[in-house]
């Protein structure tokens, strides 16, 4: 997201490919690419938080849950327009994100990671407790069936909008402040950056993005929101996606989203291990390998390639 | 006498920054040698290069044997005790535990070594259980020296021992170093900014500037040298 020209070219290529794909792919694959889009949005948000302000969250699955349940409950009870539910999800998660971001200010690194992890594990328990309103383990059924194409279009349209939004945020004063916070908190304060505001804002924004992703996630499941879909694995997937993506590269985020969106599905049919458990074994091994080989994620790899090309 | 420690054309760098540009020096067994020079000359880096703490090239020989790619623990096991800048004391551990660590590479009982150490630093014996971090600066420096001695090293590397110490303590420290050298035959390579004290304690010295050896010789020769007198001895 640095200089104008290369980014524009990449964007156009990506946009063109995305427009063409529905014509070539099967129904199931369209659905898969839509899933990648959902992860794209969530990882984009997480990237703003981790990449730009250096705060590690292993709990953004919780925000996806909140967003998803917002959509499901509003659809079920009020038959609200789907887009409106997504906006609500965005707003609610933004506020919740700010609320979480406030105490998070006092925590650093490892402690924040632990707290967000506990958040990710705990939030899915809440629907189990308040089962009348939130559907219990059976989930909230809102029966809004949508076609794969609709989900594909909605997801990538949102991705585009949210990507532009992120770009606008990050290139402006806010972005510079975020980067300042990441690079050196002490220096940032010394140069007058109001740390708490920016760190909390980053949390709110990333949570809002995750909320929208959660809405789309539920819509992709035909309006069905279930606690088991928002378990801790989801948060781990998001974090892995952000780590594989690396810092601040569009291609990196796409790679990260594709990695977590596609790999588990693709690895279900693995010989020897069998469909059920192949997913976890292959995915887990892949995550380890990628991190051993590319500790700075895809963006780091691209940076290295660019440096080699220049030399 | 053969040189216990030999450096030949040693270069060292921290990442892309080259600090030593081909240092050669030799330390005879049983002698005390000083390394002098201004800040940033590469004195500490020289010791770090010997201990294997920085990326280095060139030849370093200990007792005739080259120290190829050994890390600090390997070099320590060969009988080198390095007291770094800042002393390297384990502040959360007790005095006794620090001493015990000094003798980490030794097998079997270290009682005789401890007895020896307490003859040079009698006050340490009373303070065995005290947390090392609560000792004064001077006491910590003495502890560091004691810890190095318990190791019974062939070679002692001392980095800026006088830093942050009152003159009285510094004099005492160097007195003990000389005593260890004379009584126990300990070979010492000491890096010091305080050229006066260093040359008093040492038999020979090297002057480093910007990563090069610019002057070397016996202490008397160095003390008599005009540039040394002007720059480092102040007269």
């Amino acid at each position, binding site marked *: 997201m640095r200089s104008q020209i290369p980014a524009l070219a990449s964007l156009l290529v990506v946009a063109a490919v995305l427009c063409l794909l529905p014509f070539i792919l099967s129904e199931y694959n369209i659905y898969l690419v839509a899933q990648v889009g959902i992860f794209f949005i969530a990882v984009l948000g997480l990237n703003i938080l981790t990449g730009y302000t250096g705060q590690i969250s292993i709990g953004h699955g919780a925000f996806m849950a909140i967003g998803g349940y917002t959509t499901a409950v509003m659809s079920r009870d009020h038959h609200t327009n789907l887009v409106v539910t997504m906006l609500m999800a965005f707003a609610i998660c933004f506020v919740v994100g700010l609320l979480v971001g406030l105490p998070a200010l006092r925590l650093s690194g490892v402690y924040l990671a632990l707290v967000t992890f506990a958040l990710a594990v705990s939030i899915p328990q809440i629907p189990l407790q308040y089962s009348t309103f939130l559907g219990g383990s059976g989930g909230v059924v809102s029966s809004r069936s949508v076609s794969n194409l609709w989900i594909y279009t909605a997801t990538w349209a949102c991705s585009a909008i949210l990507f532009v939004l992120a770009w606008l945020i990050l290139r402006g004063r806010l972005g510079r402040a975020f980067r300042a916070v990441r690079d050196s908190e002490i220096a940032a304060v010394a140069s007058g950056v109001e740390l708490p505001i920016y760190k909390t804002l980053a949390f709110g924004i990333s949570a809002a993005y995750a909320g929208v992703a959660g809405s789309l996630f539920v819509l992709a499941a035909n309006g069905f929101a279930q606690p088991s879909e928002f378990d801790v694995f989801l948060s781990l997937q998001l974090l892995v996606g952000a780590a594989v993506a690396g810092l601040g590269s569009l291609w990196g985020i796409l790679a990260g989203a594709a990695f977590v969106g596609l790999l588990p599905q693709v690895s279900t049919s693995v010989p020897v291990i069998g469909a059920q458990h192949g997913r976890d074994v292959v995915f887990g091994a892949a995550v380890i390998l990628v991190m051993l080989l590319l500790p700075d994620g895809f963006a780091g790899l691209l940076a290295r390639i660019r440096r080699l090309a220049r030399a | 006498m053969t040189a216990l420690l030999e450096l030949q054309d040693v270069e060292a760098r921290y990442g892309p920054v080259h600090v030593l540009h081909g240092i050669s020096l030799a330390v005879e067994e049983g002698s005390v040698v000083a390394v002098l020079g201004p800040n940033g000359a590469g004195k500490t880096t020289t010791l770090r290069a010997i201990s294997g703490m920085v990326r280095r090239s060139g030849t370093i020989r200990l007792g005739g044997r080259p120290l190829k790619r050994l890390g600090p623990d390997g070099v320590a096991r060969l009988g080198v005790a390095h007291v770094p800048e800042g002393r*390297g004391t384990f502040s959360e551990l007790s005095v006794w535990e620090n001493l015990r660590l000094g003798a980490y590479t030794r097998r079997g009982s270290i009682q005789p070594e401890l007895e020896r150490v307490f003859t040079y630093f009698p006050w340490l014996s009373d303070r065995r259980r005290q947390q090392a971090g609560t000792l004064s600066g001077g006491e910590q420096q003495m502890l560091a020296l004691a810890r190095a001695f318990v190791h019974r090293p062939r070679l002692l590397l001392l980095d800026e021992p006088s830093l942050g110490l009152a003159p009285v303590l510094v004099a005492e420290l160097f007195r003990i170093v000389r005593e260890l050298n004379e009584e126990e035959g300990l070979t010492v390579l000491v890096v010091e900014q305080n050229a006066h004290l260093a040359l008093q304690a040492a038999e020979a010295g090297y002057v480093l500037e910007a990563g090069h050896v610019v002057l070397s010789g016996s202490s008397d020769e160095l003390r008599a040298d005009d540039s040394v007198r002007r720059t480092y001895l102040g007269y």
Partner: protein
Amino acid sequence: MSAGTSAVGGLRARGWSIDPSAATVVLLLVGAAIFLLVGCLRSTTFAQLTVQGVALGSVYGSLALALVLVYRATHVINFAQGELAMFTTYIAYELMLHGLSYWEAFAATLAIAFALGTVLQVTLIRPVQHRSVIATVIVTVGLFILIDGIVNWIWGGDYKSMPSPFGLGAYNVGGVVISHLYVGMVVVVLSSVLLVWALFRFTKLGLGMRAAAMRPAAAALVGVRVDSMLAIGWGLAAVLGAVAGLMAEPSQIFLSPTLMQPILVYAFAAAVLGGLESPAGAVVGGVLIGVTLTLIVGYVPQISSELQLPFAFAVLLVILLLKPSGLFGRREVRRV
């Protein structure tokens, strides 16, 4: 474990000034102990719940201690610590299927756990440790997922039953029924914790490990093989985890792949409560959390066992807000 993990110990030198926050913590703990004692004497239900809480809490404490060991040595939170413990429990299960007695399998499992821990540190953690913190965290996350997958693949997800080493009997102490299981759990965990403590406190190896964790550069200068120390640290942590898993299983009645997942969260809370760098704190924290959770679930009808996890999270959050360094930790230098 070391001479100065608590502020009080650190001021042993000359004067007798005591750090006020340490005094508060001690007072709180003493108060809690008195509260528990009185409660036990007045109500058999309370006493039974407390015993159960202590037993479960010791398991949480064992896993928390494993986490703290790894964190102190390598400054990494091993997210896979629980799954690793679960995996070693399955290994014990398998060994027993092949004819070993419980305690034979127990001993063999601990040895296997040690080997596994060291191998993992050397192959997976060492390469990324110095490059990137987040990469190391992700590797442990990947390990979490991988182990889960492997266990499901080899043994399947259905419930297995393992013989309980302590039988089904119980002691009757003045009307309070204390099952042999709970006593056994506490004894086994306490013994392993004490053994590990003794290793660190009294042996040269333990000293080397402590030194390597505190100041790796200075430790290397005295001849400590820092990398090996870290690997051994991981090995010991895996052993503590194995003990936790083996003791957790009978209390959950059945063995399943999700055995250690909630326990990992409680262990995190316990480790943080105790202060991530304090081994004693981790164990005490574990017992505190175990007792608190059991009593609350027992006495407060609104908080069912489903809410235990969010409750633990709330505890975690409160501690981190009030005293991030935990009960026994030293006050961290507060960054901007």
